[in-house]
């Protein structure tokens, strides 16, 4: 990445990294808060039992099930966070596009839900391998998700499709594409990607070349 591009993408990338970490830590906090309340409820029941009230096994099972559910949920969030954190390990590497897009969708699941939008990775074609900067591609995808979810479809859903065309990979989304900005321009340049949209604003597409040139292989 050249120096001029880094001046734009560096601080924006850090902000993006911070925002994703803050969103995910919020999800973990929610699970911890629920586990804390279930633990407190169990403690209440034990205190009541010490005072002679019978312990109800059905209630205790309900609590243990809720705790197990939230441990599983928090663990999934930690896995998401870990994968995302490792996406900065290499400035360029080979990625399976369907896997990366699904991960980006998962990162944006709760922010979308907060806006009342359901983000659906509808059809993600497998076997499309591209050499790219996985962190920057996720940043680009989340900028697109953010923009598209601000103007959701009437049924409040947002679909994402990944497919291969001759020489390119296409990531299509419902809604209109993001507004031009210096960050978007730099991201598209760095990823060698382009965005085109339908005239009626129902779908837009990120187009990424499949061809790997020598400069990128050695980078």
């Amino acid at each position, binding site marked *: 990445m050249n120096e001029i591009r880094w001046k734009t993408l560096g601080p924006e990338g850090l902000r993006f990294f911070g925002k994703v970490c*803050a969103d995910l*830590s*919020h999800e973990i*906090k*929610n699970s*911890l*808060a*629920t*586990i*804390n*309340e*279930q633990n*407190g*409820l169990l403690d*209440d029941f034990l205190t*009541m039992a010490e005072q002679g009230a019978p312990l109800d096994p059905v209630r205790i099972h309900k*609590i243990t099930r*809720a705790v197990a*559910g*939230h441990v599983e949920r928090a663990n999934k969030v930690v896995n998401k966070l870990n994968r995302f954190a490792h996406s900065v390990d290499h400035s360029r590497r080979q990625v399976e596009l369907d896997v990366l897009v699904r991960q980006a969708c998962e990162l944006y699941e709760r922010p979308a*839900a*907060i*806006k*009342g939008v359901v983000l659906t990775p509808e059809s993600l074609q497998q076997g499309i391998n591209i050499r790219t900067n996985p962190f920057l591609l996720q940043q680009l995808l989340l900028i697109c998700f953010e923009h598209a979810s601000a103007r959701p479809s009437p049924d409040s859903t947002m679909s994402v499709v990944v497919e291969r065309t001759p020489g390119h990979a296409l990531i299509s989304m419902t809604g209109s594409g993001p507004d031009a900005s210096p960050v978007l321009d730099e991201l598209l340049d760095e990823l060698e990607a382009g965005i085109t949209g339908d005239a009626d604003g129902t779908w837009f597409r990120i187009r990424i070349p499949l061809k790997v040139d020598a400069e990128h292989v050695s980078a």
Partner: protein
Amino acid sequence: MSKEKVLLVDDEMDFLDALSERLRNRDVEVTTATNGSRALELIRDESYDAIILDMMMPGMDGLETLKAIKADRPELQIILLTGHASVDKGIEAMKSGARDFIEKPADIKALMDKIHDARDKKMLIVEKKSEERIKEILEAHGW
């Protein structure tokens, strides 16, 4: 003294169920809502000693709900529950009329203390309002 009445607003059902049961175990009368719009409907028909409100909810978030409640029923005391102790959000919430803040995971004793404080504050406001109303009536009749 009558039971404290609390409205608990959070979109996490498991959290809402468990915390409301714990508050009931502590002799608090609890009503629950899973979103800000429902909370606004409830406060129009009922008065509460404290409203415990999650900051981050789908649709109308905690801050928007807080502002709408304060516009409608300024005497109601709101305790915000937050996953993040963000200074900016905290300042905005206090400026918008929040009584207090509690960070998730919440400590039940600290929460109960805040509910008692909120009730005391609300009683003071209601008493002051009543005194002012009585004074207005007395003055209007020249008594």
